[in-house]
């Protein structure tokens, strides 16, 4: 109980800080955009799904910390977050299964496109990284929900 | 407890006519004496016919086994009396405290 009380007080205090609210409001879209950049840049340079997912989730959590858990729940309902986590894993493993069905080993992306293995490689990495990114972002958000909501939700 | 005192009064020392009476005991002793004499006699006969071939010389002595038996019993009983002085305790010795 005391956990959620202190959380409530925290949000009330946050509302009294307009600078923080406005800066955050302007800033968070860029955080999310940067996450997508890292996600897609991962094909060519440093970056990838894991880091992107963390950054994306950080944006969401920042939003929740300043505007309250309820506000985030409107944007990303816990059930949807849960489903996203599941879908992310499924995307990742699904690619693996698809490669196996295509006749290759697990995650042998070349098998995704029988005509152009190179194209298969690109597609495979893209999908797998997307799966990882979605999963990480969703799980981080879910963990935040879990700790922020314990006591109030239960 | 299925105890009856049908034979009641004479129960203590068995003065009556049962096999557990003192008179029966005396008869038993007389009978035993007779039997002992009989086997001694037989032992003597064996001696006469040199029919004894024990492993030890002592076995061939006249009345060796009889003496051994009687002396052993005396020794054992006396030993038992001495042992009793040494080891006897109350019936509930181990149950106490």
């Amino acid at each position: 109980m005391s956990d959620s009380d202190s959380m409530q007080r925290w949000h009330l205090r946050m509302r009294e800080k307009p600078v923080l609210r406005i800066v955050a409001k302007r800033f968070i879209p860029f955080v999310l955009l940067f996450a997508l950049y890292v996600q897609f840049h991962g094909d060519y340079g440093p970056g990838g799904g894991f880091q992107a997912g963390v950054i994306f989730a950080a944006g969401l959590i920042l939003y929740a910390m300043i505007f309250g858990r309820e506000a985030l729940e409107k944007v990303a309902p816990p059930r949807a977050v849960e489903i996203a986590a599941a879908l992310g894993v499924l995307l990742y493993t699904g690619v693996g299964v698809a490669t196996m069905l295509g006749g290759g080993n697990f995650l042998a992306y070349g098998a995704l496109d029988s005509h152009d293995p190179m194209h298969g490689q690109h597609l495979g990495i893209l999908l797998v990284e997307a799966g990882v990114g979605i999963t990480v972002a969703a799980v981080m958000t879910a963990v935040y929900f879990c700790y922020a909501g314990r006591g109030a939700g239960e | 407890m299925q105890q009856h005192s049908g034979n009641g009064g004479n129960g203590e020392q068995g003065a009556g006519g049962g096999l557990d009476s003192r008179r029966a005991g005396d008869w038993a002793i007389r009978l035993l004496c007779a039997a002992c004499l009989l086997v001694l006699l037989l032992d003597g006969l064996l001696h006469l016919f040199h029919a004894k071939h024990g492993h030890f010389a002592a076995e061939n002595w006249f009345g060796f086994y009889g003496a051994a038996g009687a002396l052993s019993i005396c020794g054992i009983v006396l030993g038992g009396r001495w042992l009793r002085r040494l080891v006897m305790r109350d019936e509930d010795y181990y149950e106490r405290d």
Partner: protein
Amino acid sequence: MTHLPVLQIALPLIAAPLCVLLRHARAVQIFAVLVAWACLGIALALLGAALPGGAISYELGGWPAPLGIEYRVDLANAFVLVVVSALGAVVLPIGPGRRGHAVPPRREYLFYASFLLCMAGLMGVAITGDIFNVFVFLEISSLAAYTLIALGRQRQALRAAFSYLMMGTIGGTFVLIGIGFLYQMTGTLNMADLQRLLPAVQQSRSVHAAFAFLTVGIGIKLAVFPLHQWLPNAYSFAPPAVSAFLASTATKVAYYLLVRLAFGVFGTAYVFGALGLGALLLPLALLAMFVGALAAIYQSDLKRLLAYSSVSQIGYMILGLSFGTATGLTGGLVHIANHALTKGGLFLAVACIVAQTGSSALSDLRGLSRRMPWTFAAIAIGGLGLIGAPGTAGFVSKWYLVLAALSAGRPEVAFAVLLSSLLAGIYVWRVLEAAWFRDPVQSAPRGEAPLRILIPTWVLIGASLYFGVFTEWTAGIAEAAARQLLEGAP
């Protein structure tokens, strides 16, 4: 057939998110149980394929071994895979429970999803031939385990999960640091490759440090004394099925990992000859055996008692390892299976009790044997197994340990094993005495536990009896696996 090694991991890994999407409790349960059984089937098929003696290799993504991730199945890890998947297949059907430390009904699907994830992680640790992949799977299994424990209804469950998380993370970090050192020294993460490259650099202090970090890190996951402190709370506040599964598999997989690293990667001569690991592990093992058993004697809750008994039993396994000989290793490996069966069966019996009474306190067991004869017969047999009575699987393990101690010229250690069995006798006796010789409490339950729990209990207990007599599938394989490991095939 060729994809079996990856299916072993991929199947539960795919099934877990499906459980989340499916959500309907009944459907999820049936689905998850089917998946667990399929995993057992795959593991048995892999064991069958590994029996002739070679190793099955599977390259993930089609990349050849040192570059890509390789799954590699030989006797030792096929054995562990069978133990983990069999325990999963037997324990999962009893579900998250209804009373006591049970899972709230509307979150049951999470239980099944985490359970499958945990299985996937544990099997992944065993199957992979890539040491970084080991770390990943170790974390997957640990994260799933934290979730499973946190699912327990009481507040202590969350706290236990949190402290397990803290300690597990420390352990994981240590493992990661160790892996980092190894990578720095050799430039490879493939275990077979490591084994080939390590001898050249094994005099370097970085390799010593790598091994030290790995040993201590795994030691935390393995609950080696004195790093066992997360274990009692984690096992006693988790839902019953979780206790049964984790107690019988999680520490065993960590043990396997330590064995694999010591014998398969670093090499017997280096670990036991040059570094003298035995000198470190032997006293820890002895302490674990005695402290665990003594602490178990003084517990007032059956689940805690069993948890402390696990600390003691882990001591036996470490003891087997510490000799660095084939016999000792056989004893340790065979104890993986034997203790998994015995302890799994005992925790399931606790699940039976909790299902009927809602409590596992010793004081609530009074006279229960009259109401629940089958459950307590199982506890009696399992208890005999913990003591190591002949005819139970526990005896087989102890026999090898005593034999190993004697042939290592340490009769006093053999004596210590027997002595700690005596202590085991005391804590088992405490349970049986309460259940058999005390008068029942007023609120005693109506009758025997539901068959849904009772049957898995007896499957495990029955198996522990069976493998106490017919040992070719446990000791036979463990012996062959120990030989394979000592001969150096990673």
